[in-house]
């Protein structure tokens, strides 16, 4: 099988160039030896799903960043009469205590995004270290690390979260620690299997022969080649972090004194927003969480589609029994 026929090789070569409307691949850039995050990023910017996800994320990041400018002062202070539906003065109404719902959620994005991304980074990092070490060192190290990973995968996450949060002192640090403890195993398993397949490639053996050190091979040779899967693992971990933090705080087991989407939901349910019909109190935090998670999922599908051409949406409706187009239409067809 030549390089051009191998779909995986094609994916690595033409990441940056989406086919033109006729389905031609315009130009195939010359193969580059090492493709870091740059190629992936350019591929993502050409993918509609990934771009819309990134736009939503940027909006939320701006919101979190500009919270002190948009709503200066302490958002937990009482701003007016309690349980008011949305009005011009309070765009999203007020809580039962009389706080402004919009201000609470703008400020809440800070803690939620911070915890989500911190958990994402830490959990992916731990998973990456374990996965790489497991795949590169092999044998006993691999057996022990895989055993630990699999055991952690089996431990039920949410109940363990609840129990750990109950025993540990309340605080933001605890929430992050607990989420990393319960969240790293999934990424370790995914990254290990990817690292395993890279471990078997010739260039790793070549690096060993040229006398490169173990750390250098793991981080400079193997890691750049799994950039896309590290990326999608990271995104999945962030989604997990944001959702799990909200769940913990909704149960009142996080840090109730901070403002986040989870604590907003906790207070909404504690103040009986559901029963008094104050939908404007509990809807916004949920929509915020969902939008961020949806945006991250979109970016994740974008990563998947840019690196796995089989998942790319077909140009036109096809059935499995339609003939497979190996190349673009012939010149005669195109002329018609």
């Amino acid at each position, binding site marked *: 099988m030549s390089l051009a026929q191998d779909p995986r090789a094609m994916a690595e070569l033409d990441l940056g160039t989406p086919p033109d409307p006729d389905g031609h691949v315009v130009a195939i850039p010359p193969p580059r030896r090492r493709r870091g995050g740059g190629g992936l990023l350019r591929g993502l910017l050409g993918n509609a799903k990934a771009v819309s996800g990134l736009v939503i994320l940027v909006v939320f990041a701006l919101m979190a960043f500009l919270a002190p400018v948009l709503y200066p002062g302490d958002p937990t202070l009482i701003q007016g009469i309690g349980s008011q539906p949305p009005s011009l003065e309070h765009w999203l109404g007020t809580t039962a205590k009389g706080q402004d719902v919009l201000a609470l959620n703008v400020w809440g994005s800070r803690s939620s995004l911070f915890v989500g991304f911190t958990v994402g980074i830490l959990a992916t990092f731990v998973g990456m270290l374990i996965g790489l070490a497991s795949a590169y060192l092999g044998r006993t190290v691999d057996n022990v690390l895989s055993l630990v990973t699999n055991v952690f995968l*089996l431990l039920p996450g*949410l109940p363990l979260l609840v129990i750990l949060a109950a025993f540990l002192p309340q605080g933001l640090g605890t929430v992050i620690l607990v989420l990393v403890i319960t969240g790293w195993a999934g990424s370790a398993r995914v990254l290990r299997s990817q690292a395993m397949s890279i471990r078997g490639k010739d260039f790793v053996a070549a690096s060993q022969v040229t006398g490169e050190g173990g750390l250098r091979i793991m981080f400079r040779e193997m890691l750049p080649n799994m950039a896309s899967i590290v990326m999608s693992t990271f995104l999945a971990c962030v*989604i997990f972090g944001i959702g799990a933090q909200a769940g913990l705080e*909704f149960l009142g087991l996080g840090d109730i004194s901070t403002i986040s989407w989870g604590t907003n939901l906790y207070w909404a349910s504690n103040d009986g927003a559901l029963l008094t019909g104050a939908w404007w109190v509990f809807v916004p935090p949920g929509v915020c969480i969902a939008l961020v998670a*949806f945006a991250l*999922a979109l970016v994740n599908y974008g990563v998947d589609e840019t690196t796995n051409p*089989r998942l790319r949406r077909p140009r036109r*409706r*096809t059935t499995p029994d339609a003939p497979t187009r190996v190349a673009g239409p012939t010149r005669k067809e195109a002329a018609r």
Partner: protein
Amino acid sequence: MGYILRRIGFYLVAFWVSITLNFFLPRFMPGDPVSRMVARLQGQIRPDQIEALRESFGLSDAPLWEQYLRYLGQIFTGNLGFSISRFPTPVMDVISSVLGWTLLLGFVSLIVAVVIGNVLGIFAAWRRGGILDSVVPPVLIFIGSFPYFWLAMGMLYLFGVTLGWFPLRHAYEVGTAPEFSLAFLGDVAYHLILPATSIVLVSIGGWMLGMRNTMIATNAEDYIVMAEAKGLRPNRVMMQYAARNALLPSVTAFGMSLGFVVGGALLTEVVFAYPGIGYTLLAAVQNLDYPLMQGLFLTITTAVLIANFLVDIVYVRLDPRVRVS
């Protein structure tokens, strides 16, 4: 056979880890759970019971390994101590009285989600680019992005509070006693609809996409082309050839979810005040009922381990490649 034995060994290790975690957590955590519990139980607890409590929380003078061995012994005789918040009910009794509700809610919602999700996935992959393939997945991903407890709150508000179609809380009408009558079973089903639907809505997207993606890969296999070349009817190719082979990852995922049935619906149970394991666990945490917490956690982990083991066994039957490697 060697494969099964290795798996048994693994599950024993996992079980030991969870027991050990259960043993050490209260011992290394800051604070003094026993004095808080004793304060709660002022007047209803005998001195020898206080002593037993102190011992089960690592405050006895016996060396750690001796306490550990005694703890192991207690677990294997099914003695998990007494619940503090429902004193003097043994933890075992509390667990067995709530386990059934969790299993009911979990199994019903899991099976509904798996069946609908997989069928949708099969059709989406078979007609690439059709409506089912292009419109439904994004919608389901979007619904799946909502925190599932929030969706539960929304449904409770919409269908319970505003429209009044469904009951607001609990698993059956408060005031009636559980019995095997048609009226009671109907009542249970009526109370089940909202919580189960909220779980199904959130989880269905994952099943559909998983099935769709494996099915797309399977559709590219040579034996599919062969089946079509033979002139088999499309439905037969889709179900008997493609879907059947694409089902394996779903079986694994089903097994993993099977284990999480017991602990997974925690937040849904809390929102609907559904008297299951999760709801009881939260109540135990809020009441500082440490023995009950430990017992519930042990129940949940055991369920996960058993479910995964069953899947491993089934997998050997389904996928001959496992037996060889």
